């Protein structure tokens, strides 16, 4: 039997009309933008299933654009996100599509950054404002962002995981769960590590300094009520 917080039941505070189509969409896009790691100049959204069919009526489009602009799901500027994106010179494109056998509320983000590099991230809004990111640049992953998450891409060599866990141990951060995905032995590996407490920028930087690391980002859960 699942355990609930009172704030799972009365809450979250959010911009309507739909926790899955609006709040979850904003959250997905915010996490995707964090993963992309860089100033985004163009965001294309490939919308699947229910997202493709009803995105205008639910404001899913505005919520996705808002997330790219790092707005939170309860930010009242969310409905004006197109205007804000235009002011910041960010190009926004929506393309209804079929992404195959995935959750009905799924979106693939194609995010172009200032330096010309492109990040492809796919995730679903799985209900109640909760999300699941399951593909980053073709690498299969699975994380919800509910707990503080460290996302690292590195060269798959012996001892890297132990270096990461040493840093966390020094900083007194407990690992809740951890998954490692890789292209092949000795190639690029992706680690999604969920922790029990916030992963600060200092900790992220220490992990970034491990020599096998290609890229490291921390995604901390949004703290509600900061408005």
């Amino acid at each position, binding site marked *: *039997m*699942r*355990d*609930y*917080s*009172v*704030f*799972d*039941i*009365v*809450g*979250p*505070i*959010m*911009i*309507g*009309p*739909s*926790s899955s189509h*609006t*709040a979850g969409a904003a959250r997905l896009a915010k996490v995707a933008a964090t993963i992309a790691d860089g100033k985004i100049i163009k965001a294309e959204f490939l919308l699947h299933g*229910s997202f493709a*069919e*009803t*995105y*205008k*009526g*639910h*404001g899913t489009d*505005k919520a996705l654009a808002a997330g790219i602009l790092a707005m939170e799901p*309860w930010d*009242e500027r*969310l*409905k004006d996100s197109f205007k804000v994106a235009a002011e910041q010179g960010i190009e926004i494109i929506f393309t*209804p599509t079929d992404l195959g056998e995935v959750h009905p509320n799924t979106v693939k983000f194609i995010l172009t950054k200032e330096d010309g590099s492109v990040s492809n991230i796919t995730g679903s809004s799985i*209900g*109640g*404002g909760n999300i699941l990111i399951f593909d980053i640049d073709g690498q299969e992953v699975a994380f919800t962002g509910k707990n503080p998450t460290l996302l690292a891409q590195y060269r798959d060599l012996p001892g890297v995981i132990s270096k990461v866990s040493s840093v966390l141990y020094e900083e007194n951060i407990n690992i809740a769960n951890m998954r490692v995905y890789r292209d092949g032995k000795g190639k690029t590996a992706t680690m999604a590590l969920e922790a029990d407490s916030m992963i600060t920028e200092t900790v992220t930087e220490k992990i970034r300094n491990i020599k096998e690391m290609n890229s490291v980002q921390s995604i901390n859960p949004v703290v*509600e*009520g900061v408005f």
Partner: protein
Amino acid sequence: MFASSGEELVKICNDNHIPIWEYAIREEVIRSEASRPDVIENMRRTLHVMMDSSTYAQDQQVTSVSGLIGGDAYKIKMYADKGITLTGGFLNRAMARAMSSSEVNAAMGRIAACPTAGSCGILPAVILSAGEKLDKAEDELINALFTASGVGIIIAKNATLSGAEGGCQAECGSAAAMASAAVVEMMGGTPEQALTAAAIVIKNILGLVCDPVAGLVEVPCAKRNVAGTVSALTTADLVLSGVSSKIPFDEVVGAMYKVGRQMPVELRETAQGGIAITPTALKFKKEIFKDE
């Protein structure tokens, strides 16, 4: 861990001589490892969002993103203010509040999901209207939200709060059940009476399908928030008069879950049945999504 059933909840409350809201606060403090004042402050923020959402669309006419609904909360308020109503100013103001939050939600305004965005009108309308009538201080309104959450947790554990899983009975039905229980405690009723109110509300809405026109949280959702509000308020009076539920709360929740499971998928938020496939609804759908 929070009580697993209504029976266990009532027993814990009775053994410790505390209301449901006090138990819910204590459990949240343990669960979240936050301080009691922080937990209460968090709920106060939620209450303030509810106060805004339940007022906003009464003072100005708002329009939903699709253009399908809007302006009704304003109408109800005007009507209530004129003073010539059948069911009185109290019930009409409560209806206006429920409609306001629902319209704000559909217009991409800020709301507190309780338990869902689609049913976000009921709890604020019930708590704020009862609180106003009974002249309750803000802290007591916050307590009422904890009562409501406590009851909601039991429903979530044993059934579902999602329209996609259980139909509207699970969303607006649960919201109204939570709200009615909260008002009963606010009026001095026992934890057992609170759950009796929740049971009666769910029995009266059992089987309600989720059939959103064009798949949007607008028609018939907003008016179902109004209906749920009225049911929650009148049921509180019913229970405080001494009326009991022949079927206990836990069994009613179990029945609600089973009914949800028995509902065809067409009647669970997919917009493929019920009101959503009436000729007029299909016409609205076509107009709204004509560009896509």
